[in-house]
């Protein structure tokens, strides 16, 4: 099914875009060409900072504050968007070119109902009357497989789940039946199980209306399902472009191959602990919650010395609450936490400094977890001073040692502020801060999910190495099963606050599974471009089979 014989819809030539920084204007996009035919889906992939979103927004003739188009032409259906007046561009946006943002939760206006935000486009652009638009919304909500399509539009954004919001946003983008939709990482913020539904709904609706799309993502497996062609970007320049199957089977460039190979890191299997070994941390029959609601129900698992236990599950399954119970931030209603076989006081305020020192945490958002006003010297030095009483020269030496440990050159980094670091470097500092207390047990809460795959792999390797060198045990909270494959020794699967399955990793990835584990495992996108189609067909068949059995 060649798309190239269809007429060209969008042609961007030699696009240059600059962004304002403290050192003046710096190029973000350095001369990229992009051609899109009617009804075609182009995947844009690359790491963060590659300029994917900037290029995608430029296709709408839009630049964010602090960015400007300095060269090139953007021709949409014969209209030059660079030269066009703002009024012309505005008349195209929403009506002929629409946008679906990464976080629907942030991109829907919290003050208005979904339906009011839906009809706004068609009514303001005079495509439909309000009544027509409302009827049409119900139809599109149904096609996006939203529950209660008649009623859901009358809810406010906070009353609708993330996956549903993302579908409602795609429906909103479709409201004027645009010729082109720019999807900017529409499923990145979703759980794997939710992601599938959204991907399937997006793919169907784009095909039904023969809409062209630019699909921006950093997830190769996702783009393989969605795109006809793939373009790889690196630091504002095109690396290569080819149709999806060619690109997946025989990438030309070294960089593309490295992207493809990224999830290859697998930590070597360790011997299983002796049956009589005392676990470093035991979660014993813990029931806990907020207010009157229980979030955790009778949770039990052990973490042995030098092992990594991955706790997986969707958001809301109780992973982070478990971490809060272990650290003492949330005293449980029932059950207890054992450390080296000894019960810990439930509330961190009753724990001794020594007990506190043993358990440290690394957070998902290194951006917000580091005090922006402190230099690395103090960020890393503070726990070393507080827990170990280091001062003066000894403290300085310790900070330098920790920086070397996380592979940052001390002389260069010790006096930097967090704002002077990249995302991956910030996360490394988060690790160093946890290690400064010389703990024996570290909780890693989604530490790689905000990072690009290449950077994330570096972090995983580092954690793996440190485990061996410093005799650490990890509890690794994640919703990403690829991460589990890479680093875990044991796996705990949680759903609705209960442990549904647990055991060594190898057993986990081998059938038979608990049905929920099966759902999680099968929902992880694979590189095969036919994966989504096949999976949906299988699930359909499974449902039909179940119905026939009944």
């Amino acid at each position, binding site marked *: 099914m060649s798309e190239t014989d269809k007429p060209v819809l969008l042609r961007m030539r030699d696009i240059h875009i600059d962004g304002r920084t403290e050192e003046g204007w710096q190029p973000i996009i350095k001369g990229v060409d992009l051609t899109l035919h009617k009804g075609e889906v182009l995947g844009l992939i690359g790491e963060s900072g590659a300029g994917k979103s900037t290029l995608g927004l430029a296709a709408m003739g839009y630049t964010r504050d602090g960015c400007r188009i300095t060269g090139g032409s953007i021709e949409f259906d014969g209209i030059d968007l660079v030269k066009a007046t703002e009024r012309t561009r505005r008349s195209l946006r929403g009506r002929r070119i629409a946008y679906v943002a990464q976080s629907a939760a942030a991109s829907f*206006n919290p003050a208005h109902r979904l339906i009011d935000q839906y009809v706004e*486009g068609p009514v303001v652009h005079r495509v439909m009357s309000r009544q027509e638009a409302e009827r049409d919304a119900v139809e599109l909500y149904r096609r996006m497989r939203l529950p209660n399509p008649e009623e859901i539009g009358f809810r406010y954004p906070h009353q609708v789940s993330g996956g549903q919001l993302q579908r409602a946003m795609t429906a909103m983008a479709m409201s004027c039946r645009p010729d082109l939709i720019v999807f900017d990482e529409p499923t990145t913020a979703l759980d794997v199980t939710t992601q599938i539904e959204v991907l399937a709904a997006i793919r169907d609706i784009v095909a039904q209306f023969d809409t062209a799309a630019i699909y921006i993502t950093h997830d190769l497996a996702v783009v393989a399902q969605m795109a006809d062609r793939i373009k790889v970007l690196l630091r504002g320049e095109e690396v290569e472009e080819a149709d999806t199957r060619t690109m997946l089977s025989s990438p030309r460039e070294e960089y593309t191959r490295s992207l493809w190979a990224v999830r290859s890191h697998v930590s070597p299997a360790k011997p299983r602990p002796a049956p009589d070994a005392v676990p470093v941390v035991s979660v014993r029959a813990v029931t806990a919650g907020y207010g009157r609601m229980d979030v955790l129900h009778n949770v039990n698992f052990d973490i042995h010395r030098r092992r990594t236990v991955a706790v997986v599950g969707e958001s809301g399954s109780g992973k982070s609450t478990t971490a809060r119970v272990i650290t003492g931030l949330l005293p449980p209603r029932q059950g207890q936490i054992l450390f080296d076989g000894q019960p810990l006081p439930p509330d961190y305020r009753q724990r001794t400094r020594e007990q506190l020192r043993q358990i440290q945490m690394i957070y998902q958002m290194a951006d917000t977890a580091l005090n922006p006003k402190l230099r690395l010297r103090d960020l890393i030095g503070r726990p070393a001073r507080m827990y170990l009483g280091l001062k003066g020269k000894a403290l300085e030496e310790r900070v330098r040692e920790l920086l070397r440990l996380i592979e940052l050159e001390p002389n260069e980094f010790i006096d930097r502020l967090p704002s002077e670091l990249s995302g991956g470097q910030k996360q490394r500092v988060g690790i160093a801060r946890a290690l400064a207390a010389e703990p024996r047990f570290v909780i890693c809460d989604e530490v790689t999910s905000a990072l690009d795959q290449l950077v994330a792999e570096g972090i995983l390797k580092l954690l793996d190495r440190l485990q061996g060198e410093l005799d650490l045990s990890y509890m690794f909270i994640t919703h990403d099963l690829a991460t589990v494959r890479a680093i875990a020794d044991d796996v705990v699967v949680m759903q609705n606050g209960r442990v549904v399955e647990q055991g060594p990793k190898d057993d986990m990835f081998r059938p038979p599974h608990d049905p929920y584990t099966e759902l999680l495992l099968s929902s992880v996108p694979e590189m095969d471009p036919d994966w989504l189609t096949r999976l949906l067909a299988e699930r359909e068949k499974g449902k039909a089979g179940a119905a026939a059995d009944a």
Partner: protein
Amino acid sequence: MSKIWIMIAKRLGLGVLTLFAISIIIFLATELLPGDLARSILGQSATEETVAAFQRELGLDQPAHVRYAQWLWGAVQGDFGTSLANRRPIADLIGTRLANTMFLAIYAAAIAVPLSLILGIMAALFRNTWFDRGANAVALSAISFPEFFVAYILIFVLAQSGLFPSMARIDSTTTFADALYKTFLPALTLTLVVTAHMMRMTRAAIINLLASPYIEMAQLKGMPPARIILVHALPNALAPIITVIALNLAYLITGVVVVEAVFVYPGLGQLMVDSVSKRDIPVVQAVALIFAAAYVLLNLLADVLATLSNPRLIHPK
């Protein structure tokens, strides 16, 4: 909806508690005033007997907590006692004054609130243009001058030419239209004093939101700039704007002594100042309590309205 009522009831309860605390502070503060009230009223030549008799008449011979309880019990029923200066019931004395103060405050608010909202929204819409800068400069200059200075400038410009009277004397016989005309200059003075604060908060609250993803979304839906400000930014900026409006309204009721003095306007502020100089303690206490109630009630109202402006709280999951 019942959640909202519970919240309002809670806030009202807290408001009453606050007022109670304030009443204690007011009472104690007037207790601490130096000098003997009876003696200072009767003069140096009064005999011990007359002073004692007068103290008995005023109830000053009783212990402080008894007097406080009596005073509070009366105040709750609207009876603030009698003025020491002219022996009239304070409730009557305050009644017309309070009405005048409220009239001037509402008059000024009716000009200032819409004006500052419109200016603030327009300044946000045309941010960093000559309009934005001009509006900011004028509003800031107006707030930077002392009130009496603004008042005298207005008298100089608008009253010297005979357009408006410089004396805002009104009484029970003044018609509504006449009152509006006569109090135009004080109302305008107050408007100039409070507009800058509200306008700049409106502008800042809106501009603060313009970097939000949902504003970008509205832009990418091709919405015109005015619609983005009014429909997408303003509803989310209401809470801080409402708070600042309430603070300024409270100021319009309680902080206008200088303006009343300049324009000889018979308001509460004047009464308070007069009573302080005459050592008419019961009147001072009553007016202070009314001012405190105005502050508490307006802030309570702002809290409730700000809450109502958040759909997360009115439409729970």
